[in-house]
């Protein structure tokens, strides 16, 4: 009975006669998702405003006589003269583990038809990045499962590594592979019951992409069993530019929750070129002065404030970012690519030529770099792959030189032979990440010349066969590599025995 009385009391309290103050304005014009509003004299920058019919907007331009707002939602119902109210709130999105396995829009509302999201917390979409004091340097690895990357361009937890390349060079595939690999590692780690194991949760932000591509990505993650560790924030090409502009920040807010709560997260922004285009569109409609390539003056800050939110926090978790940039005809010196290159801690550059030659992932070793990840690389990978980048660079140089003549000395020939074998070894099918311990074994066998006697075309198949052999028959050795994370004499002997066993069966 008392509960019922309390409920009635609460209802009465809600209906109390206290006056509510609202600051209002009137829509003067609505065009292309942007409303110009008279009034709203108390509105703050980035504050949410409420339009009639439940649509919300964000105040982006505070001018002397009017306020420019981007409308998030259906603009078709808005008309001149409609009343707009301030809300006194910043835009927030729901955060937490309840979002894992879900597809949400830029405002955190579910779009996957799986019902409402169970989340009790929300984080502001725009937030100042963590400062200097709370940060810690990157020293823990984040394995992508792609051998070429983990061995030569390693990524650490809390790093921002750009994936850049022309259309159709496999940028998204690298990001998806990385997400799938995190899920695989999570499953093994959580099953092991190791209290020190830190799972990595993923957030995939799709900006301005075709809906069909997003569906394909979700499908790939679902098939690989990675969706349960992933949140997908979708702002497809059909969405209004305001949502496309906000989606990366919403994704960052979702990722920050994991970071702030002592967990590790990975966020993929696919892609920031389209994000910049959406922002340019909004800025031009808001009549902000345009600069180079018609982008507004603060397009650098647009991405720097977003990517700075990825960090490794002292005593807390980390947020690793993999932003994607699409180039035109391989031009990395264009405006947006140079901006993002300068913000990130390295880049993975993908080349169309390599892709067309069948070298996939089409990672250009010469142009790719990881500025902080090497300190996060495990010792075993350093031991077997430390010289790979140099060897491949030498190979590329010699390969270009060798095209001019056939008379090559034995040393050059052997370098070319070795280089082409490394290239073959790094070929890897999509959505098939390789665990780090298997990568170590594969590279160890290459270093010790176990592929030298094989035909070049056989190298890829041989490496797959070697990994299968170890996964099925030498699981204990793989587990030891995984746990020790370094190769000692004893472990190397065990690998040698295993590889020799495999070689005998493979040759036969």
């Amino acid at each position, binding site marked *: 009975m008392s509960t019922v009385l309390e409920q009635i009391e609460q209802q009465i309290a809600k209906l109390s*006669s206290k006056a*509510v*103050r609202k600051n209002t304005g009137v829509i003067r014009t609505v065009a292309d998702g942007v409303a110009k509003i008279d*009034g709203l004299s108390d509105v703050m920058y980035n504050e949410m405003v409420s339009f009639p019919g439940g649509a919300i907007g964000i105040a982006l331009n505070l001018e002397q006589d009017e306020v420019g707002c981007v409308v998030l939602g259906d603009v078709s119902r808005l008309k001149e003269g409609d009343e707009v109210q301030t809300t006194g709130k910043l835009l927030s999105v729901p955060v937490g583990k309840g979002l894992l396995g879900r597809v949400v829009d830029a405002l955190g509302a579910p779009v996957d038809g799986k019902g409402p999201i169970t989340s009790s917390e929300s984080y502001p979409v725009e937030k100042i990045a963590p400062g200097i004091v709370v940060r810690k340097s990157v020293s823990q690895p984040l394995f992508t499962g792609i051998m070429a990357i983990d061995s030569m361009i390693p990524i650490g937890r809390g790093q921002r590594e750009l994936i850049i390349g022309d259309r159709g060079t496999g940028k998204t595939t690298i990001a998806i592979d990385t997400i799938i690999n995190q899920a695989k590692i999570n499953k093994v780690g959580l099953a092991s019951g190791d209290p020190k194991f830190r799972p990595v949760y993923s957030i995939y932000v799709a900006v301005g992409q075709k809906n069909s591509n997003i569906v394909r990505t979700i499908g790939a993650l679902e098939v690989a069993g990675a969706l349960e560790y992933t949140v997908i924030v979708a702002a497809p090409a059909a969405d209004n530019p305001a949502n496309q502009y906000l989606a990366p920040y919403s994704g960052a807010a979702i990722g920050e929750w994991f970071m702030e709560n002592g967990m590790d997260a990975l966020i993929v922004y696919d892609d920031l070129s389209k994000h910049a285009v959406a922002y340019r569109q909004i800025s031009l409609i808001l009549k902000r002065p345009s600069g180079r390539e018609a982008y507004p003056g603060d397009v650098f800050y647009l991405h720097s404030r977003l990517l700075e939110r990825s960090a490794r926090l002292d005593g807390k978790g980390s947020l690793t970012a993999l932003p994607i940039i699409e180039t035109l005809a391989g031009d990395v010196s264009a405006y947006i690519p140079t901006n993002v290159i300068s913000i990130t801690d390295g880049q993975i550059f993908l080349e169309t030529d390599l892709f067309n030659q069948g070298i996939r992932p089409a990672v250009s070793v010469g142009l790719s770099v990881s500025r902080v990840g090497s300190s996060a690389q495990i010792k075993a990978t350093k031991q077997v792959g430390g010289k790979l980048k140099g060897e491949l660079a030498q190979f590329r140089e010699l390969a270009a030189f060798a095209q001019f003549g056939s008379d090559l000395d034995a040393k050059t020939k052997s370098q070319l032979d070795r280089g082409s074998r490394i290239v073959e070894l790094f070929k890897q099918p999509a959505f098939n990440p390789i665990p780090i311990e298997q990568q170590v074994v594969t590279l160890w066998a290459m270093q010790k010349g176990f592929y030298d006697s094989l035909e070049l075309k056989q190298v890829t198949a041989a490496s797959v066969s070697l990994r299968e052999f170890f996964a099925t028959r030498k699981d204990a050795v793989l587990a030891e590599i995984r746990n020790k994370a370094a190769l000692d004499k004893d472990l190397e002997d065990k690998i040698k025995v295993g590889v020799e066993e495999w070689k005998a069966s493979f040759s036969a």
Partner: protein
Amino acid sequence: MPKQDQQLARQLFSLSLVGGTLSTEHVGAVLQYLEKHPPARPIAVLRAYQRLVRAEYAKGQAVIEHAGPIADSLVQSIATTMAGRYGRAVAGVAKANPSLLAGLRVRVGDDVYESSVAQQLAGLSV
């Protein structure tokens, strides 16, 4: 609207104020001046000027919407309270609005103070 027109409208508006308050005489003088010396885009300038004057005028008025009967003393009391709150002269104007069902809605400039049943019912439905 071109920036020059907006600037001109703002200049004319500042000429219409006397001690921070809108002066009817000055507004009349501005309109006479514009009639004699029309700018390049007179309609645009006049619209911008009208918007500024309307906004300023609204700041000096407390439009009190009410559903039932309202006493003059209450209108006066609200106007006095608002004048104290905004630090300027505010005139009370009563306006019947049956859609409020009961209670009041007071508008001063951009600010709306509402204590009506209609608003509370709308709040419950959210």
